[in-house]
């Protein structure tokens, strides 16, 4: 009451914080965002390294890995030759790390944290201490996941989906995986509560829901997905922990015989229960990966085509609908688990329905370009690259969503190709776009354009070389998660030769990340300095100084109009910022 009214007077006074409080245990959303971002980028690189190791084995099954091979222990790669268990570990951990420790923390943790409060004109997140707890919980989860590589028997090796009974009887790494996941789930629950409250409560005056930038909308819907979809996985995780540690049999039916010995458990469980709970999370999780990417792309496309987003409202409604529907399509991952007609028809129908809002959003982006004055700078290239790549990813989802067409395609490389198109050249390109776009806001400096373009063209070409052949291999019927890439099977013979080329492309992709890494660090210290709004953008984050101080804005801004008022007829300049007072 009287206390709080006085606060505004010294709102901008900040005692100097020590190193630990300012950079490590910070409660400032921008520092936390950057912490998330850097940690996630490290994890992305780590997950990518796991994949490159796997690609060696797929390209040259059973051959010793030169140079690096000798670095590995005898339990993983004796003589530099990978063992099947280690391959399975790499596969499981690649998936887990990329999704839960790489892309989501980058898309939600980093961009969400850094950009959302700025875009809605807030001084910080609603609960700064929770925000810090969220990061450190994520960090702890990451450490547990990494440590699991040291566990006897290696890291989790039952796939990122951890289907029981395999995961119930797997080596100790699976227990670490579960504990790590519980940390990550806690982190994202804390984070999502924070995001929703921040967006709903801390919007500045005048920023109505329909004036929020599309990115904020995307984060809001994403936060709801995380909030409501993760708890079932937590429940499933607890049950699997019980199965592993307390010998219960939630996921173990009666009468299992493992390697000739009857399993000594009470039985009566259901392996399908895990799949339901897992996919109840993991399908919305797909949209957690995509929606923030779409948000970033919307910002960048509007900015660089210098015109408003076409059909902003329909895109927002599609977004909400997409989020809602994503909760009731999960069993399309389970068509082949003995599903009858009724239930499969239900899930096929919801799956087809959910494709419509995706089409709407993509169409919005395409049509938004029409009539613009498109600037082809690096972030725009990445955002434009997202569109066709996500298009392929989305379209290849269609045959998988129709249960009859799914029969031959289920669990083949077609599936791998499909979701990698969505997540890798799709989401990742958008995330790179975001990094190039908001880099000046975080550092006050801009990244080098030339090397950015090298990074873009190298990445998009290599990614297609990796993922397109997967679709072909999948149509030929090659199963996923094969240690020798399918060399055991005669029917796979005609498409095996792609493996080497795909692997070479993967390693080349690593080379093309070097310009990015160097550019990134060079630009932090030596990049060209720019003013607070280098892209001449309309949204509010660009009103704050670069980098924004603790508390963000010099004076709390007020929103007077929608987020994308570019090239307003009759205006002096081709952009009219959201918080520029109307000339009345």
């Amino acid at each position: 009451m009287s206390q709080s009214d006085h606060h505004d007077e010294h709102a901008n006074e900040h005692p100097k914080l020590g190193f630990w409080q300012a950079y490590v245990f910070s409660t400032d959303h921008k520092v936390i965002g950057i912490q998330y971002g850097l940690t996630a980028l490290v994890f992305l690189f780590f997950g990518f390294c796991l994949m490159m190791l796997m690609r060696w084995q797929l390209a040259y099954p059973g051959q010793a890995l030169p140079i690096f091979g000798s670095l590995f222990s005898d339990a993983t790669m004796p003589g530099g030759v990978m063992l099947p268990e280690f391959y399975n570990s790499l596969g499981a951990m690649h998936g887990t790390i990329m999704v839960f420790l790489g892309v989501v923390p980058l898309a939600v943790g980093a961009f969400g944290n850094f950009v959302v409060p700025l875009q809605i004109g807030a001084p910080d997140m609603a609960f700064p201490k929770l925000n810090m707890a969220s990061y450190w919980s994520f960090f702890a989860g990451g450490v547990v996941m990494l440590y699991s590589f040291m566990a006897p028997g290696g890291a989790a090796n039952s796939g990122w989906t951890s289907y029981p009974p395999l995961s119930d009887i797997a080596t100790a790494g699976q227990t670490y995986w579960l504990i790590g996941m519980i940390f990550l789930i806690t982190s994202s629950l804390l984070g999502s509560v924070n995001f929703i409250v921040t967006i709903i409560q801390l919007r500045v005056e005048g920023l109505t829901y329909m004036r929020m930038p599309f990115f904020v909308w995307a984060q809001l819907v994403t936060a709801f997905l995380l909030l409501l979809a993760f708890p079932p996985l937590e429940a499933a995780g607890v049950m699997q922990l019980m199965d592993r540690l307390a010998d219960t049999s939630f996921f173990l039916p009666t009468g299992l015989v493992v390697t000739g010995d009857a399993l000594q458990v009470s039985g009566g469980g259901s392996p399908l229960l895990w799949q339901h709970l897992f996919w109840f999370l993991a399908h919305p999780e797909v949209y957690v990966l995509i929606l923030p990417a779409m948000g970033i792309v919307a910002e960048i496309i509007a900015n660089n085509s210098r015109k408003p987003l076409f059909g902003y409202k329909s895109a927002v409604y599609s977004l909400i609908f997409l989020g809602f529907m994503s909760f009731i399509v999960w069993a399309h991952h389970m068509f082949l688990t003995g599903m009858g007609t009724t239930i499969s028809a239900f899930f096929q129908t919801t799956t087809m329905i959910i494709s419509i809002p995706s089409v709407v959003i993509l169409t919005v982006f395409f049509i938004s370009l029409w009539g613009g004055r498109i600037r082809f700078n690096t972030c725009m290239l990445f955002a434009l690259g997202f569109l066709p790549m996500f298009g392929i990813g989305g379209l290849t989802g269609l045959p998988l969503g129709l249960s009859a067409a799914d029969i031959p395609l289920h669990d083949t490389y077609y599936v791998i190709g499909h979701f990698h198109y969505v997540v890798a050249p799709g989401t990742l390109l958008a995330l790179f776009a975001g990094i190039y776009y908001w880099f000046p806001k975080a550092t006050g400096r801009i990244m080098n354009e030339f090397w950015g373009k090298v990074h873009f063209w190298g990445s998009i070409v290599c990614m297609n070389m990796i993922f397109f052949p997967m679709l072909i291999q999948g149509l030929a019927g090659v199963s996923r998660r094969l240690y020798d890439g399918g060399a055991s099977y005669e029917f796979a013979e005609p498409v095996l030769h792609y493996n080497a080329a795909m692997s070479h492309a993967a390693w080349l992709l690593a080379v093309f990340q070097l310009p990015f890494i160097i550019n990134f660090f060079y630009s932090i210290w030596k990049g060209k300095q720019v003013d607070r709004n280098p892209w001449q953008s309309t949204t509010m984050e660009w009103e704050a100084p670069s980098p924004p101080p603790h508390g963000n804005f010099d004076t709390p801004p007020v929103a007077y109009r929608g987020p994308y008022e570019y090239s307003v007829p009759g205006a002096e300049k081709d952009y009219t910022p959201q918080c520029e007072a109307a000339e009345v």
Partner: protein
Amino acid sequence: MDKFWGMPDIASAHGAEIDQLIGYVHYLMFALFIFWGGFFILTLIKFRGSRPGPANYAGAKGKFSTYLEVVVAVIEAVLLIGFSIPLWAKRVNEFPTQDTNVVRLVAEQFAWNIHYPGPDGVFGKTSFELVNNETNPIGLDRDDPAAADDVTTINQLHLENDKPVIIHLSSKDVIHSFGIPEMRIKQDIIPGMSIPVWFTPITEGNYEIACAQLCGLGHYRMKGYVTVHDSAGYQAWLDEEAALLAEEEEGDDFWE
């Protein structure tokens, strides 16, 4: 149109229908991709930044995008209602009842145990307590009269051409997935459940069973062999197995 691009040759009666659906979906995908891609490239060239004049605040006009979305929705509905749901219903509901071969398949890490009912056409009882991996991998109860003539093999699935076969899938340990690419058949095998699949082989020859669900370190080579015989060949094979079985009967079964 029989099979879609790069898919293996079809060896089962229903395969063509599935490939037809996959083909149609892909044509829709190609059409959309080419249409969008064309529009995209055209837009990028036409509205590049170096062209003269300002951006157009109003942007594109007309209801074109709505029509496009409606068309996509309609095509999807047709694929769904006209093809996928009926095809699926045929797979899971309309099992042939007469003149079929019935086989049980028990998957384990990392082998396919196949159980034929023998001449009497009745499967002997099995129990997980009787499982002995060396000699009795499926736990067949030889005391059951129906079990006496039952034939079991590991990784060898023999089928009769042009005759529907129903395979009851079950698993001893973890989830496996039974797939024969040429037959356009795939079914996850869930421990604790017995899930039937059916198909009609239409081409004699040798095929492979591939495990499609990660089941452990040997998943990559959990391979089975399928042989499709003509009727005479199938009968000959059954006779041969019966003879082998008779020879085995002489052995002492204490060691099982």
